[in-house]
């Protein structure tokens, strides 16, 4: 865990300086189109943006050490609250997408491996290539056109929070979840197939066959569990990427998640929000990678930490 500290420090410094060299600053965005240079300078002073960079960096570092990510320079709302408001939609979308992706990809990937070279394998792999190469926004708009605008089964956009009911929440997430899941399902199906193919050629599978075990038992009990390490790794990376904000899906379906928050904050040059978000995103990556590493113990007894 201690080895992650330099990662955080590097990320924090990198983001801090990258934002400062990007053209534009929050004072200009706050002041509006008609503001004079003098008005912009007044706001810049008010926000402390005219102070030396080192002073600004030290002030931010001091806040961080106190566990304070600061406040949005626009809304004056604490960054932690802004992130908190957006965490649920992104987490729920990620969960729905990952569950759907696993539900689609594991059976299909397994089928393709077991029937390697056959018609089923070719169909599954064609699906995987199509799913992986279709842009999410294209799939999203097709889903909206068919299931929301034409059939009227689902809303075209928006997110219903969990506090208004689990079913209502799921209803708002089905279309974005499917749009996103297809991408990950394609990747996961290919990884599942490749891992299983490798395992299915191992000696112990031949032994299991010789012992007269059923093909289903061999595949599920012996092959899948031994092929799990790369599959779990891909699921973990996918989960981390989703929690890091899925900007396109959140934009097309108007889901007020972390991806949208990040995009808005970058466009406005809302420094505290961008800095806070990047730190949160890197924490998510570190934690999920750690969990993935730890999970290897469950699937492979040879792994020791």
């Amino acid at each position, binding site marked *: 865990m201690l080895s992650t500290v330099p990662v955080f420090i590097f990320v924090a410094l990198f983001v801090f300086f990258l934002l400062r060299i990007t*053209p*534009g*600053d929050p004072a*200009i*965005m*706050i*002041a*509006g*189109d*008609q*503001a*004079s*240079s*003098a*008005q*912009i300078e*007044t706001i810049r*002073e*008010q926000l402390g943006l005219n102070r030396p960079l080192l002073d600004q960096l030290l002030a931010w570092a001091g806040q961080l050490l106190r566990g304070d990510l600061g406040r*949005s320079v*626009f*809304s*004056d*709302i604490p960054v932690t609250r*802004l992130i908190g*408001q*957006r965490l649920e939609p992104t987490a729920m979308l990620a969960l729905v997408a990952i569950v759907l992706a696993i539900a689609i990809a594991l059976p299909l990937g397994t089928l393709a491996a077991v029937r390697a070279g056959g018609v089923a394998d070719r169909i599954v792999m064609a699906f995987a290539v199509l799913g992986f190469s279709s842009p999410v926004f294209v799939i999203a*708009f097709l889903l909206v056109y068919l*299931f*929301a*605008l034409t*059939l*009227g*089964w*689902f*809303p*075209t*956009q*928006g997110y*219903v929070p969990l506090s*208004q*009911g689990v*079913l*209502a929440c*799921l*209803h*708002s997430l*089905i279309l974005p979840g499917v749009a996103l899941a297809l991408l990950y399902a394609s990747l996961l199906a290919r990884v599942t197939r490749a891992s299983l193919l490798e395992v299915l050629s191992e000696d112990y599978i031949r032994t299991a066959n010789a012992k007269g075990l059923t093909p289903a038992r061999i595949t599920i009990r012996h092959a899948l569990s031994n092929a799990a390490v790369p599959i779990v790794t891909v699921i973990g990376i996918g989960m981390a990427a989703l929690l890091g904000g899925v900007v396109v899906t959140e*934009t*097309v*379906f*108007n889901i*007020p998640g972390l991806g*949208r*928050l990040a*995009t*808005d904050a970058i*466009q*406005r*040059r809302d420094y505290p929000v961008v800095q806070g978000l990047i730190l949160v995103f890197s924490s998510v990556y570190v934690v999920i990678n750690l969990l993935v590493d730890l999970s290897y113990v469950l699937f492979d007894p040879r792994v020791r930490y």
Partner: protein
Amino acid sequence: MKRSLGMIVAAALAVAAVPASAQTTLKVRPFGDLKTIDPMTTSDYMVRNHGYMIYDTLFAQDDKGAIKPQMVQSFTTTPDGLTWTFVLRDNLKFHDGAAVTAADVVASLKRWGQLDGLGQQLTAHTAALEAVDARTVKLTLKDRWGLVLEALGKPSSMVPFIMPERIAKTPTNEAIKDPIGSGPFMMKRDEWSPGSKVVYVKAPTYLPRQEPPSGLAGGKVANVDRVEWTIIPDQQTALNALQAGEIDIFEEVPPDMMPLLKGNAKVGVTRFAALQAVLRFNQAIPPFNNAKLRQAILHLVDQEQMVRAYVDDPAFYTNCPSFYMCDSPYFTDAGWPKPDVARAKQLVKESGYDGSPIALLDATESILHSQTLLVAQAMRDIGLKVDHQAMDWPTLSTRRASKNPVAQGGWSAFMSGPAAPDMYEPVGHLALRSNCEKAWFGWPCDEAIEKLRADFTMIPDLEGRKANARAVQLRAIETVPYVPAGQLYLVRGYRKDLTGLLSAGVPVYWSVGRGK
């Protein structure tokens, strides 16, 4: 069978998704996002619109451009025009239940008077602004300044909204934090999620005027319990939501999307606000510090061609050969040159243009992007060396503040679209101001225009002011602080079961309700 199963699942989830509440909610997709809540520290139009939701004003502009009393019950002025007395309507209350008093008005106007351009002029001409009693405000001028009512009824950024004294006393270098007003709606700050949603509820304390609504004046009756501004960044998503009835109003439907709505009987489109397309020059550096070259561009720009780059439907644009909006009482086409490419080329020659690059900044997400491309090509066609630079609006906003030479990150021209109320008359006009460093980006500098603008404020009668506005235009045709590239109308998409929609120049949501 599969389709039936899908329908059943979707229906079950949909039933679960229906909110139990019976209150009437108006769902609006505004054109932007609310970034901050202090309407005095920014000219941002979304903050202005937020201000109209929660605050009220002493005076307001009606749909004919006349200034009408709003919070004021009566007012008088002495024959010399130096002393103005305003009496507030009885029983005006802020959202926290406190009475609106003359002290609140004085504090609000003093803060606005330090921050707004027109407010600063009023302050400069003011000898005293005081509360006589709880409902009476007295304004004593140093001289007969003629724009008192126009200033107090200023319709666009920055609007002299009235807020509680304790809030209005916030130093001008700090933003207010408490959105308490006395307007028809109250902001639900706890439900504000920047970038996602802004919620307003009907203010039970609000006492509307008895007159019917007209422009920004008249009775501001809230006909819905709740207004939700749903921030939808993607325009196609917003269009889908409008068609599906998930939102009631889509502000600023892009013109190229209007045909997609034509087949939907439940959705209508209407124009709701106007803007002037402005091609602004940087006069601080070459080559547009040369008046002849600016005159060349004035002769070059063909408004008909420019406006049709925005929309090919005359209902949504107007050729307006003037620096003022066509519906302004000060509109004049005096001296306006017809588009003439040959004359433009001649003026380029007379300017002695040396072929130095013209950095034309283009915010590609702006509705004026296509017009900027047209301008770039038209300039090239008359022999100008145009360096068309595509960027986002925040970058353009930073670049345009620079007075550096083009080679060092400076700029020569950009396009913007100020709202109609900011382009009505010489004094409040954003782009005609020619007071050098204090002027809008581009910093035009002309003593004659500034003298005329100062004179305008001292002229008591409309005819005299019209003559002044005409003189300003004639002079501006020589100095060319900018080139108007046509008048465009912003389009509102709406569900047809709505009633009471207003086209006030500013998107406002009092009077709007649902048909029975």
